């Protein structure tokens, strides 16, 4: 890639989300100005009043598809983009707001709104990849700054990003943390959760709550059987464990449904999880 005139044109956009993942970009305090020299940031509403609707060489997409206008918007953005990166649990799994996927959205709306006709909300909150092709994803709630830097570095050099495909347990062991399941007898999703956070929760003497989502071929049933047998967790509490920030990602979703029927407080519903309205 040659020199500044040909810097990749980068956009950062959001759907339903808390803004925390795109904030990680601005929180790269030591690298931010250098990053801005490598990339031509043409759209990043959180950071600049200069606007663009594309085309983008790289587009970072935060948030889940959650409102009717999101559907045409993500498709239009995809058409303008060469390399689309979904960032964070909302964009990669639907996020915490996907807990409504188990509920009866229509009843929900009419219970909440005096004027449901004003409400622009889909029955489900779904990941970007369910609607358009995603070229890369960064997991996490929020994404990890080291993974973000690694991805940005890989993009400038055209190599594949080195993102470890392993469980949180591996990071945890390498960090030398005592296992919280063994020492503290608390449930921990580390063995079924994608690494990347640096095993923060075990380092803070608590169980992992799975915010980086399930790792490939996670043996959720094995963990659940163990917790049922050894920790005497009731099925409802097993479901509760998985009903977090990546609840909508399989096989966490199946665990929520299988053990508890639905997330805590959510009435099991007429619309099945994942069905767009």
């Amino acid at each position, binding site marked *: 890639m040659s020199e500044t005139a040909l810097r990749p044109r980068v956009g950062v956009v959001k759907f339903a*989300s808390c803004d925390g993942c795109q904030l990680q970009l601005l929180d790269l305090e*030591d690298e931010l100005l250098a990053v801005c020299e490598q990339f031509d940031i043409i759209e990043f509403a959180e950071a600049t*009043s200069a606007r663009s609707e594309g085309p983008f060489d790289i587009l970072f997409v935060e948030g889940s598809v959650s409102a009717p206008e999101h559907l045409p918007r993500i498709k239009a953005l995809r058409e303008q983009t060469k390399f689309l990166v979904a960032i964070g649990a909302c964009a990669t799994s639907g996020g915490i707001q996907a807990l409504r996927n188990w509920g009866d959205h229509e009843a929900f709306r009419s219970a909440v709104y005096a004027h449901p006709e004003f409400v*622009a909300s889909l029955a489900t909150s779904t990941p970007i990849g369910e609607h358009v092709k995603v070229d890369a994803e960064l997991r996490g709630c929020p994404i990890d700054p080291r993974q973000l830097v690694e991805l940005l570095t890989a993009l400038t050099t055209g190599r594949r990003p080195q993102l470890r495909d392993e469980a949180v347990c591996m990071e945890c062991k390498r960090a030398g943390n005592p296992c919280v399941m063994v020492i503290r007898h608390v449930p921990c999703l580390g063995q079924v959760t994608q690494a990347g956070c640096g095993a923060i929760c075990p380092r*803070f003497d608590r169980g992992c709550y799975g915010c980086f989502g399930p790792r490939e071929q996670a043996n959720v049933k094995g963990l659940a059987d163990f917790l049922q047998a050894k920790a005497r967790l009731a099925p409802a509490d097993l479901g509760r464990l998985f009903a977090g920030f990546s609840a909508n990602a399989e096989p966490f979703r199946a665990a929520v449904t299988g053990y508890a029927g639905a997330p805590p407080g959510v009435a099991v519903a007429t619309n099945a999880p994942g069905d767009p309205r």
Partner: protein
Amino acid sequence: MSAMGRPEREGTPAGATVGPPVSGERRIAVGELTRVEGEGSLRLTVRDGKVVEARLGIFEAPRYFERLVVGRTPDEVIDIVARICGICPVAYQMSAVHAFEDCFGVRVDPAVRALRRLMYCGEWIESLGLHVYMLHAPDFLGYESAIAMARDHRQTVERGLALKKSGNDLIKVLGGRAIHPVSVRVGGFYRLPRRAELDAMRPALEHALEHAKATVRWTTGFAMPSFRRDMRFVAMKHPREYPFNDGRIVSNDGLDLPLTDWTQAFEEFQVEGSNALHARSKDGNGPYLLGPAARVTLCADQLHPVARALLEETGMQEMIRTNIYASIVARAVELVHATAEALDIIAAYRPPAAPMVPWQPRAGVAAWATEAPRGLCFHRYETDDAGRVVRCQIVPPTSQNQAAIEADLVHAAGDALQLPDAEATLRLEQMIRSYDPCISCATHFLDLSIEYDGEGPATGGRAS
């Protein structure tokens, strides 16, 4: 890029009507909070050359937080409500944890209380620093962003980034990560920081204090657009501390009530045509403003001596009280306070005997407010015998500030309309950013539409 006119908060208490105020306490079976980050729109209605109405639309696809926490345990709620806002997750965690502890009669170790204030210092430094340097200062110096500003003012932007980083690093030490930290729980923390970990923060914070002082002097030199209004301020106030997590709710026109009783003096209501919930005081005294200008005005005596001396040195107390653009100076003064208090807390830190005290849940009402960087953030939970949430109401600062922003726009937008379209939009954007309504809205382009009532078709200008 997004449908305009979608409301900031979608939803209303069941049974509420549109238009006239809903009196009394909110009765909701399900909650409806959605966050205010998102795109902003401003609609001005002009009649006979005068602005008669300003409608600020801040919207976000509904995420139903007040509903998502139903059925959850208090500690789960603390993790979940952080996700309302990636910029001020600590504020949501703090309002929630204090509410539950008050309800369950939990008395935490004084050192735990101090650590929570320290965590809040980190969030204030990070969030106020972000707003001053990345979002607001470019307006005063004529740049589209801090990144563009860095081309001419690299050292200044680096100073801001270093300041912000010290706040983020403080949260990281206490909570594992700067965004959505994982350490806060009812009764205390999951894990306490070691003495050495906090000591390691001191050099960076000492630099940050110098940077914060420089920020006050820098922002004091900005040319402030003319604006004069006696603003109605609401903030928490404590006799001995600058308000983070304790005190009473006060105003500069006589309100004075416990943190638990927000709903006694304030209510949320729906605005016809926007479906957005605003908040107002029940006394009929009109809109009120929260945040740095309110706190610096109402709680100047409680500022850290270093911050108070600097505020006096600026001579801008009166301007902070009456000119919203000067809120950037108030933010800078609070940056000094937060870094100075952080250093004091670290110097005095003695690790408590245990990270948490045991507690028993009970059925009841858990209500509390804390001071988010943008202002008072009120939470109210009804719990069952197991402490699980049955109902929830969360009132973020921006939904409270919205009425004041609109009233001020009616007051001041007329002057801006004398300017050419692009300049007018820039001026109005700058004014809205002065309130720090929320990050993405605050920096966002504004879709400005002006309706000339009875004077022919609407014309629109698009900023940027």
